[in-house]
């Protein structure tokens, strides 16, 4: 079902939809571009924040590294006794508050017993420095000793928890002590500085990232050193975590991080929070600092602003829609009134009042045009009413003329029920109310039956009037003269004498001797009749002859045939052979002959009906253009013979 929409609502809808579309695109692109700009700005902020934090960490670690290296270099330069070494360790530790413990270990010497010497080690407890030598043969394969030894360079250990069980994160900076024996530099021992990372944990906790953001620190192996989720610290690496969470993409990010990469990465954290993460390495230890910026918070201002703009836009659109609707209604209201008024006019009330014209706009012009049209229509209908009345009068007169004309032709069949020698039947079907065709038959004397068919040129009233004259003359002259050629010549003479209108008529006139079956006939330009004999129909060859009317003193040829009993003579006008269908196709003589042959054995009334029906069928719905007239006569033999 299709709902009818008013112009106002269609207009309002289109404007609203377009406006919403424009605003959506505008606000969407505003939001997107703001985010891009914000992300760019945030990248710089994040980089600054991370690098500043790293700088603070690095400063401390670097200093510790330098002290440890200095210590190692001292041990390479000079020979120290056990007491001298202990004093050096103690003094160095005392001077460097960031170091928790300091020791020096040397390569085992198989010549001594035990081969692994006791390792001198001092550590800080409050303000006191405590001597706590390591008496274990295991140190040569501990990380803090083995890694710098095997790598031949300073190494920071993977952080570990302090042995005291205080949950304090520690790391060790170890520097190999070399001995140049002339051939090569070999590692003689390792200086180790243990560092508490409590300050680092505090520093990391102090990094504020918006409201809900946070930072975390990864070791070289990817182990969490600091993280808001304490369960992760020292338990999980970023890789074991990604394995648990089944997030391989995070593993790739983790690999970039622990390999010393830096950059900004989209990151969905453990709680499923979408975030951006900036990460950068701590150069001396190979650790990685990551700072997580929650997207929701990062883009909160842009989102809120966008929502406000969207709200304003929405209110604007509502207002705009209302305004558009109001204006559209205002513009189309006169149209609506006009439509109602015209509906009334359409229903026939031409006096219906049109809405008052308030302005000279298109609607005003339309109203004026409607008013003018209504006036013109009223005049036209008045004229039409008068014309129709006149036409009806003429029509009724014509109808009467039709009746009169029809009554002139012999219409009562059988016409001569007391004459068994022949049978006769006829039909005239005028194309208009009155026709120019006619037929007639009458006895001249007791045995001679005159019958004729005529076609006045032209149709309608003039032809009908001319026909009246011709018919009257033909009957009068027929009864007076008694021979067809003389009848035609006589009638022609009278018609031609006063023929100002130059009208003419064709006539085929014949006289049947009912005793012998002889037919005498003459033709004045009419179609030759059809003879139906022994079931065969053929056109009778006749002289053409000149039409009646235009010229005086025309002689007509008398001809004759003899009908055998059962023969039928069929006379017709060109209304039959020239009947046309929609394709302008003529009915034609050939079809007529075939049709007659088909109904040759029928009674004459049936034959004429059949031919009429046949012609009507051919013409189908094409209007009848000419009068259709036919007369058929069948000779049955002399009286008493039948």
């Amino acid at each position, binding site marked *: 079902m299709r709902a009818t929409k008013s112009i106002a609502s269609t207009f309002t809808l289109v404007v609203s939809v377009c406006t919403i579309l424009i605003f959506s695109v505008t606000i969407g692109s505003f939001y997107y571009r703001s985010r891009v700009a914000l992300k760019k700005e945030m990248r710089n902020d994040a980089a600054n924040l991370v690098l500043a934090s790293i700088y603070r960490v690095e400063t401390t670690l670097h200093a510790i590294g330098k002290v440890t290296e200095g210590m190692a270099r001292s041990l390479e330069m000079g020979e120290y006794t056990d007491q001298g070494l202990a004093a050096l360790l103690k003094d160095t530790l005392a001077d460097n508050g960031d170091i928790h413990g300091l020791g020096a270990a040397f390569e085992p010497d198989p010549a001594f017993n035990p081969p692994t010497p006791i390792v001198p080690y001092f550590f800080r407890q409050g303000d006191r420095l405590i001597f706590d030598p390591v008496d274990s043969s295991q140190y040569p*394969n501990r990380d803090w000793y083995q890694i710098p030894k095997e790598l031949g360079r300073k190494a920071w250990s993977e952080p570990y928890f302090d042995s005291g069980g205080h949950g304090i994160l520690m790391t060790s900076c170890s520097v190999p002590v070399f001995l140049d024996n002339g051939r090569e530099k070999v590692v003689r021992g390792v200086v180790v500085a243990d560092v508490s990372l409590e300050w680092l944990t505090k520093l990391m906790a102090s990094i504020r990232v918006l409201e809900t953001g946070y930072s975390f620190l990864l070791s*070289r192996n990817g182990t969490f050193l600091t993280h808001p989720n304490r369960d992760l610290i020292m338990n999980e*690496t970023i890789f074991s975590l990604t394995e648990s969470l089944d997030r391989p993409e995070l593993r790739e990010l983790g690999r970039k991080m622990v390999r010393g990469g830096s950059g900004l990465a989209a990151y969905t954290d453990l709680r499923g929070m979408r975030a951006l993460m900036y990460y950068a390495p701590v150069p001396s230890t190979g650790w990685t600092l990551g700072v997580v910026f929650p997207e929701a918070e990062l883009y909160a201002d842009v989102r809120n602003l966008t929502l406000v703009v969207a709200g304003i836009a929405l209110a604007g659109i509502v207002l705009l829609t209302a305004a558009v609707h109001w204006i559209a209604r205002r513009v189309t209201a006169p149209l609506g009134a006009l439509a109602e008024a015209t509906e009334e006019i359409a229903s026939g009330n031409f006096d219906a009042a049109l809405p008052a014209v308030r302005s000279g706009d298109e609607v005003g012009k339309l109203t004026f045009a409607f008013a003018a049209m209504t006036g013109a229509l009223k005049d036209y209908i008045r004229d039409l009413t008068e014309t129709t009345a006149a036409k009806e009068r003429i029509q009724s007169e014509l109808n009467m003329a039709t009746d009169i004309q029809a009554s002139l032709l012999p219409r009562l069949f059988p016409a001569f029920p007391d004459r068994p020698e022949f049978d006769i039947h006829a039909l005239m079907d005028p194309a208009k109310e009155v026709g120019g065709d006619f037929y007639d038959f009458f006895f001249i004397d007791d045995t001679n039956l005159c019958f004729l068919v005529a076609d006045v040129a032209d149709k309608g009233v003039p032809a009908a009037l001319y026909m009246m004259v011709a018919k009257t003359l033909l009957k009068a002259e027929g009864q007076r003269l008694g021979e067809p050629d003389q009848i035609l010549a006589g009638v022609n003479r009278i018609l031609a004498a006063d023929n100002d209108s130059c009208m003419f008529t064709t006539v085929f006139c014949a006289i049947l001797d009912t005793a012998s079956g002889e037919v005498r006939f003459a033709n004045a330009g009419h179609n030759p009749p059809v003879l139906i004999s022994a079931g065969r129909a053929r056109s009778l060859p006749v002289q053409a002859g000149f039409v009646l009317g235009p010229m005086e003193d025309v002689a007509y040829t008398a001809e004759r045939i003899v009908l055998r009993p059962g023969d039928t003579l069929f006379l017709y006008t060109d209304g039959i052979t020239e009947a046309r269908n929609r394709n302008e196709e003529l009915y034609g003589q050939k079809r007529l002959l075939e049709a007659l042959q088909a109904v040759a054995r029928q009674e004459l009334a049936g034959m004429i009906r059949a031919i009429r029906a046949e012609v009507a069928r051919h013409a189908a719905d094409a209007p009848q253009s000419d009068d259709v007239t036919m007369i058929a006569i069948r000779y049955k033999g002399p009286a008493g013979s039948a």
Partner: protein
Amino acid sequence: MRAGMMGLLVLLLALAATAMADERALRKARLMPMWSPQAQFAGYYMAREQGIYARHGLDIDILEGGPGRSAVESLTACEADFAVLWLATALQQDAAGPRLVNLAQIVQRSSLMLVAKKASGIAAPHDLMERKVGLWNGELSLPILAFLDTYRLRVRRIPQAYTVNLFLLDGIDAASAMWYNEYHTILSAGVNPDELQVFSLHEHGITFPEDGLYALERAYRKDPALARAFAQASLEGWRYAFDHPEETIEVVLRIMRQANIPASRAHQRWMLARMRDLIVPADADGVMGRLQPAAYEAAGRILRDHGGIATVPDYETFTGGDDARN
């Protein structure tokens, strides 16, 4: 009425007596694992947690192992009644005396491997020639030495401690690793499996059974039934652990946290899955917990060649002899 009260009293007394008898029936014993709590010992934890030991009439106290706490020393010092030991450890101890009895062989084949980084150009065993290879102290390195011997490799032996940090920093070219432990630790430090070249010893013909349950022979002779019950309950514990991996991992993580040991869920999950691969026999007719004579013989040969012992006891004696069938 009076008779009814009396009957009730008698019934209550009987019930109390039964309960006390049950209490008394639980035999106390101590188990010393060879290392700190981890999924390597999940079966024993689950046997305790799920009351499987109790159902076998045992009250097992699982001691805390780890660096500096030798399981075999605990056993010989009678600080523990049972211990989880490597077959190599057990055979060396058996040779030195007092003698031990293998109650069950838990890990059926060697989980040891040598791991190298492909980037260091090591693709086949002979590429290890003259390279720095990390080896654990003592009997833990025996299968690796056998491997090196198989390929006649001379390597620079670097003592390897408990971490793989030296390997991660490229301080050594190849590290010793347990499939269920160090190998995954390396993966968890961000090294991808396809970056590693792994030589699994068992794929190189060295099938060296590892974790087994042991008791001192003299203690075992006194009460074989107790030891057998312990072994059966422990195997049942392992079956339970494999059937309930998530529950087991929770228990392992809890025990690790209680012991202040770094505990990674992913790592323990990996370890439990690998223990299953190592413990559950590969072929359908294999029996869980049974020391295979062939593997025992092979291990014995390696020990005679590299472990400094002259003879190994015959299989029957080592696995408890006739008592096993009783």
